[in-house]
Every structure is written in structure tokens, then in C-alpha cells.
């Protein structure tokens, strides 16, 4: 299993330096088999328990979803969808929502505060709260609408994939608590192999479109789903079909940065060159006498 090397940092927000990379680090992943989920919310309870989170008690809104949304103190939420399939049968699709731990994390790309978001060498994306300035740029960067800013301390929060547990060889609290084994945790390659077994099984049971959700638009994710309808991820409470970091964010955090600084420097240098070539525009003695003349004539006339 993973060890303390997982605390090597692979990516760090607002930092261009090369990270340590001489160690071959094992990539971890959580695999959520949606077809085996019974919607018991043990994962939500375990998450609250391990991470000491107590979201405020809300109101019943006519849905099994509870709480209704992710929040600064609700890092994972079961989303229940009642879907009438083309055969006219009801399918109850239950997806455990939360941070996907993208290989190319949009939150980290958008973050302006050095070291407020890191990606460990094992692939886990973590918010380092003491460096968070509460700007909410991570919300703009995330393709999955996951980070939430706390009204209490104005810092961003999301699932840590229990980085503290993983660092000492434990599986995340949700995976530990899941009674049906729908949440699995291990190396990414093991989890992909596990998913393939499950997909063969699902196909044999008539789910022809069963597949693995490991979207390449964000470089793959360290939280993956086995979906019975992998051809249509949005069925599962709006899971994006082809998530990617918004082109606006790519421009803003990519090419715009050097271009803007170069443009500002160019403008200043243009001023310098103009001064060297044309020089200052100075008032000449004849301007003074003509100017005074105008004043005198106008005042007299």
C-alpha cells in the first residue's frame, strides 16, 4: 500500500518550480462501483466521522439526497436519480459525488496562492487550508463543481481522499465503511483491473453499455466510477460526459500570464525608447513669449 512517500508533492498551486520526481511513486485510486451502491450513506457518515465534519442540519426537501448539496462540511453526498429506462423500467441510479482527484486538476491550475492546493505524488489533490486565501478561483477551475467556500472561515474545502489515512497505509474512511464493497481503494492499475472484472459481469447481466469512468479530458481521475450506463454519464445526476478544464481558465492561467507581463513591460520599454529617440517635449522660449502675448492681447482687448 501507499506509504509516507505519498507526501512528495507532484504539483503545487501558483508555483513553477520542478517538483521532486526521482522516486517512482505508486498512483492510488478510489473505484466507486455505482451498480453495487445501495444508497445507505455509510460513506457520508464515515467521512463526517473521520474528518470531524458536522454540516448544519437542513430541511427535508422531498429527496433522498441529504444534505442536498456538497458543502464545506459535506465533502461527499449521495445523489439519487430515478431514471425511466427505454424499456419503461425504473432504475435507481445512486452516485457518490465528491472530488474526483483529477490527474490535471483545474482547481490547482486556477489557484493564485502558492501551495494552497497540492497534488501528492500518489495523485491525491489536497487543499492546504493555511495557504488558502478564500478567493474561490478553485470553484472556477473545477470541471465537476466540487470546492465549497466556508462561510465561517472563508476557506475552500473538499474531499481529501483521506490523504492522512492513505499516508499511513489506510484506505479512505468511505471505502472502509462501505458495507457492499461498492467503494474500493488501491493502486490505480489494480482498480482499473478490478473495474474490468465488474464491467464483464455487468455486461453479462444485460448492461451492454457498462464501463469505466476515468475521463481523459482531465488526464484521468483518481476517483473512478463503474457505471452501468457509461455511454451516458449525465444520467447520474449530471456527471459530465467529457469533463475538461474550461478554455477560459486555460487561457487565464496559461498564455495570458506571460503575455500580460510582457505587454506591460513592452509598454514601459516603448516609453523609454520614445524618450531616447524623440526626447522630452519642452516649452521653448518663443512659446513663452507668444503665450504671454496672447494673454496680454486678450486681456487688453
Amino acid at each position, binding site marked *: 500500500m501507499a506509504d509516507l512517500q505519498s507526501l512528495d508533492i507532484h504539483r503545487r498551486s*501558483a*508555483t*513553477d518550480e520542478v517538483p521532486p520526481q526521482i522516486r517512482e511513486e505508486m498512483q492510488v485510486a478510489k473505484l466507486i462501483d455505482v451498480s453495487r451502491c445501495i444508497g445507505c450513506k455509510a460513506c457520508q457518515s464515515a467521512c463526517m466521522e473521520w474528518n470531524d465534519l458536522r454540516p448544519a442540519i437542513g430541511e427535508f426537501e422531498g429527496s433522498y439526497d441529504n444534505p442536498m448539496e456538497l458543502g464545506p462540511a459535506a465533502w461527499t453526498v449521495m445523489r439519487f436519480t430515478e431514471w425511466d429506462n427505454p424499456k419503461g423500467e425504473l432504475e435507481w441510479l445512486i452516485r457518490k459525488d465528491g472530488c474526483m482527484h483529477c490527474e490535471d486538476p483545474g482547481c490547482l491550475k486556477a489557484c*493564485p*496562492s*502558492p501551495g494552497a492546493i497540492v497534488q501528492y505524488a500518489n495523485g491525491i489533490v489536497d487543499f492546504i487550508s493555511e*495557504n488558502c*486565501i*478564500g*478567493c*474561490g*478561483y478553485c*470553484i*472556477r477551475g473545477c470541471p465537476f*463543481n466540487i470546492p465549497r*467556500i466556508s462561510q465561517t472561515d*472563508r476557506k475552500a474545502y473538499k474531499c481529501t481522499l483521506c490523504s492522512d489515512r492513505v499516508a499511513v497505509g489506510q484506505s479512505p474512511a468511505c471505502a472502509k465503511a462501505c458495507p457492499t464493497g461498492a467503494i474500493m481503494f488501491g493502486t490505480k492499475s489494480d482498480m482499473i483491473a478490478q473495474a474490468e472484472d465488474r464491467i464483464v459481469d455487468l455486461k453479462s447481466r444485460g448492461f451492454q453499455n457498462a464501463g469505466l469512468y476515468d475521463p481523459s479530458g482531465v488526464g484521468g481521475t483518481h476517483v473512478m466510477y463503474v457505471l452501468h450506463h457509461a455511454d451516458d454519464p449525465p444520467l447520474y445526476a449530471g456527471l459530465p460526459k467529457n469533463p475538461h478544464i*474550461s478554455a*477560459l*481558465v486555460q*487561457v*487565464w492561467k496559461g498564455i*495570458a*500570464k506571460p503575455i*500580460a*507581463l510582457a*505587454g*506591460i513591460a513592452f*509598454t*514601459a520599454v516603448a*516609453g523609454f525608447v*520614445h*524618450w531616447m529617440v*524623440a*526626447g*522630452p*517635449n*519642452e*516649452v*521653448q*522660449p518663443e*512659446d*513663452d*513669449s*507668444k*503665450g*504671454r502675448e*496672447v*494673454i496680454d*492681447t*486678450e*486681456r487688453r482687448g
Partner: protein
Amino acid sequence: MRHQPPGTLARYTAAARINHWIGAGLLILLGLSGISLFHPSLFFLTDLFGGGVYTRVIHPWFGVALLISFALLFIRFVRHNLWSSDDTRWMGALSRVLANDEESAPEVGRYNAGQKIIFWLMTLLILILFFSGLVMWDRCFFSYTTIEQKRIAVVAHAAAAFVIICIWIVHVYAAVWMRGSVRGMTRGTVTAGWSWRHHRKWLREVARR
């Protein structure tokens, strides 16, 4: 009130000067705090404002103050900045003006076409910055916009900020390049020679009064 030296003309009242320099100070504070969150290499500038969190907190309030300050300046100066056909002709002579040959350009009133362009660009950019800034101000306005709108806002805000910083450099450089201009905004007066050279029509108008 200070005695006006002979041979000089009053160009800016004390109120206009104070108004201008409050806006100038705010624009610099906004530029420093904004650019510190734009480029990671400049994050150290957040230290000027007490760290990243306080930079994030104070930047929008500087923005609100600038909007108010600039609105007052706009009301003061807008009537002098209306575009005329002379301005279009003046722009045609811009390359000669840049070579310090103003004699061949049309005579200029209170402001030349370049100054008017800066005035209107500042107006437009401050409005873009203000409204895109509201969309970025999650503390107060998070729930009013979608995430996609927030993404558009950050790009618009950064782009407008880039242009306004360049405009600011041009504005400051031009004031220094045209010797004798800065005193108009510090002491409030300019010399007769300066007025003859750069703002001849305005000189005649003022002298007639």
C-alpha cells in the same frame, strides 16, 4: 487660496487635483493588489496588503472607492472630452506629434485627441473592471451568477486590467514627456508657454475670461 503666479493659467482646481490623486492612488493600489493574484511570481506583492487573505478582502473595496472617485472625475471632465472633427484630424498628425512637432497638427483645446482617448478608455475599462469585479466578489455576490459566468468575468477582469495598466503607463509617460504638464495636476497652474505650445485654443479661451 494660493496666489497665482503671473504668466500662469489655472488648469485644475484644488478639488479636481485632490480627486485626481485619490483616484491615482487607488488605481496603483488596485494594480499592485490585483497583479499579485494574477501572476504567481508577483504573489509576494500581497505582503504590501498584509498577506493573501487581506489582499483578497481589500481589493474589491479599493475598486468601489475608485468607481466613486472616477465617477466624480468623469462628471468634472466629461464636457471637455467630447470628440470633434479637429480631434480626428489631430490623430492624423499623431506621428508628427510623437516627434515633438506639434505646429503642423490642428490647434488643441483643453484636451487633445490622445488625452480624450485615454479618458474614454479609462471610463470603459473601469466599468468593465467594476462589473466583472462584482461577479468575482464571492463574499458578497456568489449566488447571483453561474460558474460559467464567473469564468467569463475573471478573464474579462484580467484582460481589462492588462489594458488599463498599459493605458496608465501611457498616461504617466505622456505627462512626463510633455514637460510642464505635471505641475498642472500638482500646483494647479500651467505656464503661458506650455499652453501656447500644447493647448492653444484653450489658452485663448482662458485668456479671454
